[in-house]
């Protein structure tokens, strides 16, 4: 049975030129697997992730024929029930720890906040659980980190803290929106390995939203390529090199390689693709 079913999802925003559709009727299913959604800025990939958590605020409008998570109809859920779901069963890791963590709250308290919201737990038990989850994201000196403020940790550690916050309640689905693009390459691999390990251990579903085709190809099982609000290609990660759609092929070709012999990189011709 699939964990998440999205059918004909549309997201639009009013502009001076009338209603603009940023996601134009996409459908996909997710099992307990790692799915990568790739596309460039403006392709609608982040909007799709947010829509699943019902985080698209007014004046945006979201419609879907079906949006079901583990048998629950997400579109019909009351805001109260939705809040109980967020963080506990579906969670989201944001792009930049610098802007997503509360700057005036100690890390330990911040991670523990999720627990006090969703579970009844005394302070000692909460602290113990926070320590456990900090260790699960390979923070070795959890005692020390617990007491720090976000500005006192590095970007890589900040992102691991965000992941800790998101997995503390062992959700069934984690949506990671550009989880590593604010990080260094060497730290990127570490953060992705941690997420990968958590997915393998807990069997949760994972959606990685990214513009980085190579990264997604390496860490996901299946890839959706979005362009201009539509899914233009779906393929198994290992078959990415044989992508059929001209947009995917263009993206792949425009990336330099370690052994780069071309004097000019090919540039996407958006007009040919019918983009704007």
């Amino acid at each position, binding site marked *: 049975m699939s964990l998440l079913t999205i059918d004909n999802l549309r997201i639009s925003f009013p502009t001076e030129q009338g209603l603009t559709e940023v996601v134009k009727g996409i459908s996909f299913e997710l099992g307990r697997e790692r799915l990568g959604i790739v596309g*460039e*800025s403006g392709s609608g990939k982040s909007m799709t992730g947010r829509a699943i958590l019902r985080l698209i605020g007014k004046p945006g409008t979201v419609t879907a024929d079906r949006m079901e998570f583990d048998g629950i109809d997400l579109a019909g859920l009351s805001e109260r029930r939705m809040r109980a779901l967020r963080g506990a069963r579906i969670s989201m890791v944001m792009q930049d720890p610098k802007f997503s963590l509360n700057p005036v709250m100690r890390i330990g308290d911040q991670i523990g906040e999720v627990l006090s919201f969703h579970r009844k737990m005394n302070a000692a038990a909460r602290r113990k659980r926070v320590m456990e989850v900090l260790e699960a994201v390979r923070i070795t000196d959890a005692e020390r980190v617990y007491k720090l403020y976000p500005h006192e940790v*590095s*970007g890589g550690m900040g992102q691991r803290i965000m992941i800790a916050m998101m997995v503390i309640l062992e959700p069934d689905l984690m949506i990671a929106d550009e989880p590593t693009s604010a990080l*260094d*390459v*060497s*730290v990127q*691999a570490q953060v992705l390995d941690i997420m990968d390990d958590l997915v393998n251990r807990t069997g949760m579903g994972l959606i990685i939203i990214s*513009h*980085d*085709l*190579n*990264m997604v190809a*390496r860490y996901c099982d299946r890839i959706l390529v979005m362009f201009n609000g539509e899914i233009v290609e779906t393929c198994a990660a290992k078959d990415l090199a044989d992508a059929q759609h001209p947009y995917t092929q*263009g*993206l792949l070709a*425009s*990336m*330099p*390689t*370690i*052994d*780069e*012999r*071309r*004097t*000019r*990189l*090919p*540039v*996407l011709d958006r007009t040919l693709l019918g983009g704007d």
Partner: protein
Amino acid sequence: MSDGHDCQCLIERFWGVIDMIDLKHLSIAYGDTSVVRDVSLHVPEGGSFGLVGESGSGKSTILKAIAGQITNWTGRIRLGEHDLQQGRDPALIRLCQMVFQDPFGSLHPRKTVDTILSEPLTIHGIRDQNNRVLDTLDAVGLARKFRFRLPHQLSGGQRQRVAIARALMLDPPVMLLDEPTSALDVSVQAEVLNLLKALREQRGLTYFLVTHDLPVVSFLCDNLGILRHGELVELATIDQLKQQQFSSEYGQELLSKSY
């Protein structure tokens, strides 16, 4: 293309000098913390050098020292014939300019493209601003209609073109590039990389690129240095990178991590 007169003058002044950037025993410390230790490297005129390393390795610190933003370094920094002075060095600004990583943070949000580009000219008392601005817009492939726009009206790629144009306004022979494409989409990255490569060929610029992206180095540079914990662990040619044959263990580790 731009009249390039000033650029030509500078190039003539440095004619015969083999190295455009020459660092000797460069060490930098913040207080008691040593950040860069005894780094020596040189980049020939018209060359392109890539400095790679993780965050915290000191690569941006070296860049800042060359750009004159950090002044408490020891050792020698030489740009062409000019020995960099400790403290503020006015000659430096005409010698090298920098392109920053994030085009969203590096442009003044309330100044038009025109103001951003003419400011360095005004400061240095250079005339003929109108033509120079238009020439530079053409050189970086920005349509002239963008001249009076504000940064928020431009896309990321367009903004980075403005940042490159700003760096070119004073015709410096050296360009310092701090992760110039890492904030951009891949297809936009390709456009900006192509532009940087073309500008270097047309104007004989010398590039000093700081990045963690080895494929970008492979496309844009002739030589590279690998920095770790403030020390240069390896100097390599681009062919060594292409054949993935670094001699240091750490170099190989970086290769295995990049995908």
